[in-house]
């Protein structure tokens, strides 16, 4: 970026070493980075003056973080919005400093920056010690497999540079890292603000004989070559150009040579590498880890994207149930039974979470049993697939076992470093729900609208079914694929084993929600007309249905409903023939903030139908959806 010198000053042809800088907010990350760039003469001419001017304009002293915060919103709000990469030169060795924001949605931004780092600098305020984010960041370093961790004990001036106090701080951080199987390569006592032990040795800590930060960075090992490991070549694509078939992919480890026999994927088809094709290079007879190649095979078999090419004597692990670590990136918690696609290099497998084996508590870093994984949480889970998955268990510093979970809409929701095959526990229900090969987007495109669930709740007689049926007809006439699930219809068939006890009513709601989910996932608009009187039951439905759930309150006062009494139920309840009737001797808990509130005491069916139909169309129709977003 323009803030630092173009590191072109480097003579070296070595790749830059990425270093991620993490730590609790206010422990001094930005100051450290500013100081480091300044003290090592990595700033462009005029940059310091520009930072002073920019700081002054906002009434600040010298805000080093402005070096990193290149966006105006970041400067104005004093927060880093997204991770930044800063090239940095140290004695002709090139580094890239990755700075990740310590604020909201931290995890997905940090992982974006840090996943390919060779080393990390964990900044800890020596006076304050490890805090919540220190633990969170350290946990993530462990999960993404960063082995070289330098702990910078910052602000040691606050401890008067006292050896005993600083060593006590070091001990407590060291104990924390041990719990995570992380071992710090080094602890450096420093004051980033004053430059002590950053690029020059502190004169205020004569007792410290270890390296300064710049000396420590110079010792970070270069990435190890993966060319000598057994071959893994995941197929990225297959091209047919000029009547020749090319199998394209990047060699993740090992090497291929012309004449080698490789095994292709789970079908275990053997084939010989007959050539390594390229354009504008010298002819190649072999290629190694890191190279993107295109090979031709003999016989001319046709592999698929995701097939793994390997040698017969060094096969990967094959399993359909896999234990994995997890860092969870979705805002909603993860629960058992959810289905995803597991991306593994170029392969993609439909998987289901069959168990949440443990969840990490960030306060004490211990693993506990848990029902769900919270947003930005860490866990160990078991995934099941209907097919066999070929993989290598996660090894830090390699591409092995780098699983990523994506949802139905192909959004990345979690990172899953694969641990190994999972055994089937005694008495465990082994189910393998399969994911669809038809994506939500395909369905949306074909139908011209999205699927969605509109949950009509209200007293008996408030007009839910009448409204739902009229709206169904109106939407259908408009080309919308729409279905109604109403209480009585469900109870006539699917739910005829259920009565009206609270437990049975909850089960009734659960079944309605599950059916609605299946229909919604098939791209339909579903109108559910169900009294569903309890807030907790509707919360259950929302949980099952997720974000595409709209609560519609069909609101008529009890007197009006009782007067309408289309099914004679109020009369029966009043005379004691039926009990537990909503509104009479069972509660109705009105929605707190429904997506739509229809008052049906006075309004005509026609006008309420119009309101509901247009609300639904705005929600699911593409033009409406586009409008809403822009």
């Amino acid at each position, binding site marked *: *970026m*323009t803030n630092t010198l*173009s590191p*072109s*000053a*480097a003579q*070296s*042809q070595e*790749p*830059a070493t990425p270093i991620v800088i993490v730590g609790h907010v206010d422990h001094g990350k930005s100051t450290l980075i500013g100081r480091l760039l300044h003290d090592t003469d990595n700033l462009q*001419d005029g940059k310091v003056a520009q930072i002073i001017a*920019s700081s002054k304009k906002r009434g600040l002293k010298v805000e080093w973080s402005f070096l990193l915060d*290149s*966006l*105006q*919103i970041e*400067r104005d709000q004093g927060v880093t*919005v*997204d991770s*930044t*990469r*800063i*090239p940095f030169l140290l004695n002709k060795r090139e580094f890239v400093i990755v700075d990740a924001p310590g604020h909201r949605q931290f995890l*997905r*931004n940090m*992982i*974006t920056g840090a*996943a390919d780092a060779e080393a990390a600098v964990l900044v800890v305020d020596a006076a304050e010690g490890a805090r919540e984010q220190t633990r969170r960041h350290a946990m993530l370093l462990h999960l*993404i497999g960063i082995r070289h961790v330098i702990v910078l004990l910052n602000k040691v001036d606050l401890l008067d540079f006292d050896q005993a106090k600083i060593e006590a701080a070091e001990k407590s951080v060291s104990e924390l890292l041990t719990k995570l199987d992380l071992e710090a390569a080094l602890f450096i006592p420093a004051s980033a603000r004053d430059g002590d032990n950053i690029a020059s040795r502190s004169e205020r800590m004569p007792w410290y004989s270890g390296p300064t930060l710049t000396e420590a960075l110079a010792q970070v090992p270069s990435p190890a070559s993966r060319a000598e490991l057994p071959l893994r070549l995941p197929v*990225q694509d297959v*091209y047919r*150009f000029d009547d020749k078939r*090319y199998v*394209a992919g*990047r060699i993740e480890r090992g090497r291929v040579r012309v004449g080698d026999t490789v095994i292709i994927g789970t079908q275990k088809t053997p084939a010989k590498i007959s050539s390594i*094709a390229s*354009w*504008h290079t010298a002819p190649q007879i072999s290629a*190694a880890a*890191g*190279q*993107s190649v295109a090979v031709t095979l003999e016989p001319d078999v046709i592999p698929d*994207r995701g097939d793994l090419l390997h040698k017969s004597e060094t096969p990967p692990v094959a399993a359909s149930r896999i234990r994995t670590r997890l860092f969870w990136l979705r805002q909603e918690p993860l629960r058992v039974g959810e289905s995803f696609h597991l991306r593994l*290099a170029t392969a993609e497998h439909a998987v289901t979470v069959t168990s949440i084996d443990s969840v990490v508590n960030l306060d004490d870093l211990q693993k506990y049993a848990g029902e769900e994984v919270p947003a930005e949480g860490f866990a160990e889970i078991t995934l099941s697939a209907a097919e066999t998955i070929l993989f290598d268990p996660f090894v830090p510093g390699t*591409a092995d076992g*780098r699983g*990523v979970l*994506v949802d139905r*809409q*192909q*959004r*990345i929701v979690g*990172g899953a470093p694969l641990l190994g095959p999972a055994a089937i526990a005694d008495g465990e229900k082994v189910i393998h729900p399969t994911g669809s090969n038809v994506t939500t*987007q395909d369905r949306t*495109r074909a139908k011209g609208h999205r699927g969605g669930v509109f949950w009509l709740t209200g007293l008996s007689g408030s007009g839910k079914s009448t409204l739902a049926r009229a709206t169904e007809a109106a939407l259908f006439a408009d080309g919308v694929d729409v279905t109604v699930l109403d209480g009585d219809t469900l109870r006539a068939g699917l739910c005829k084993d259920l009565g009206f006890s609270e437990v049975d009513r909850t089960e009734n709601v659960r079944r309605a929600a599950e059916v609605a989910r299946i229909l919604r996932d098939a791209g339909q608009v579903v109108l559910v007309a169900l009294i569903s009187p309890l807030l907790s039951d509707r919360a259950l439905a929302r949980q099952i249905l997720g974000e595409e759930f709209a609560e519609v309150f069909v609101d008529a006062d009890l007197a009006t409903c009782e007067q309408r009494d289309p099914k004679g139920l109020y009369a029966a309840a009043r005379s004691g023939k039926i009990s537990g009737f909503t509104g009479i001797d069972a509660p109705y808990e009105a929605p707190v903030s429904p997506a739509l509130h229809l008052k049906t005491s006075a309004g005509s069916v026609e006008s309420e139908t119009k309101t509901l139909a247009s609300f639904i169309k705005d929600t699911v129709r*593409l033009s409406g*959806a*586009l409008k809403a*977003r*822009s």
Partner: protein
Amino acid sequence: MDHLDQLEAQSVFILREAYRKLKPLAMLWSLGKDSNVMVWLAKKAFLGRVPFPVMHVDTGKKFPEMYKFRDEYAKKWDLDLLLGTCPPVEEMDPSLPPAARSAARKTAGLAAMIEKHKLQGVIAGIRRDEQGTRAKERVFSPRGASHKWDIRNQPPEFWDQYATPHEEGMHIRVHPLLSWREIDIWRYIEREGIPLVDLYFAKNGKRYRSLGDQDITNPVESNASTLAEVIAELETTRTSERSGRAMDHESEDAFERLRVAGYL
């Protein structure tokens, strides 16, 4: 593998992902050094061909040398060239500073091309080291229906797994050169012998370090008249590549505003 080999392999991987996952797909060709490298990398990825259209969104204000270069190499490289035009500056946001307002024409021209060809993927040659806001980009950067870049809400991107459009009307900007630096581009041009417009080389003590529209791009002081001299110059420079681009310097946020609206 040396550094350039690694960058090349990574860019080829990215281009192949884009070709596999985003259809229809097109590459932006601004006729500058970076986009020539990008076309070259596509030919590496697809064994001598570029299997998708190459788009030049023409402001009508490029240097004559650039138009000549375009017509010559579109033929030599057998490119499926798509030309787009840009609306007049009067139609652009008047609250932008003058040079940024002029640059915004390209955003509008590009948006029209994306609509017209219903593109799911647009490959662009931006690099992180060029400009602070570009340092925050993803390799696959999703854009909503209005083409806006939502900086606050970028998807996670790690372990070479990239975002794909998950809503109707979205497209992805693909950035295969994101990790390249200016010096890498020049060293690769030298290594591979990639042709360039000669405006990059010094005449009468000046050369263009970055090429945009004639009226908003200024040459820098330089005597570097060969590839080797340009590389030697960059090895010691302490000023930024885009110092000759007027819109970057008009106000603190002019370039950020352009990019949020869909500029490259």
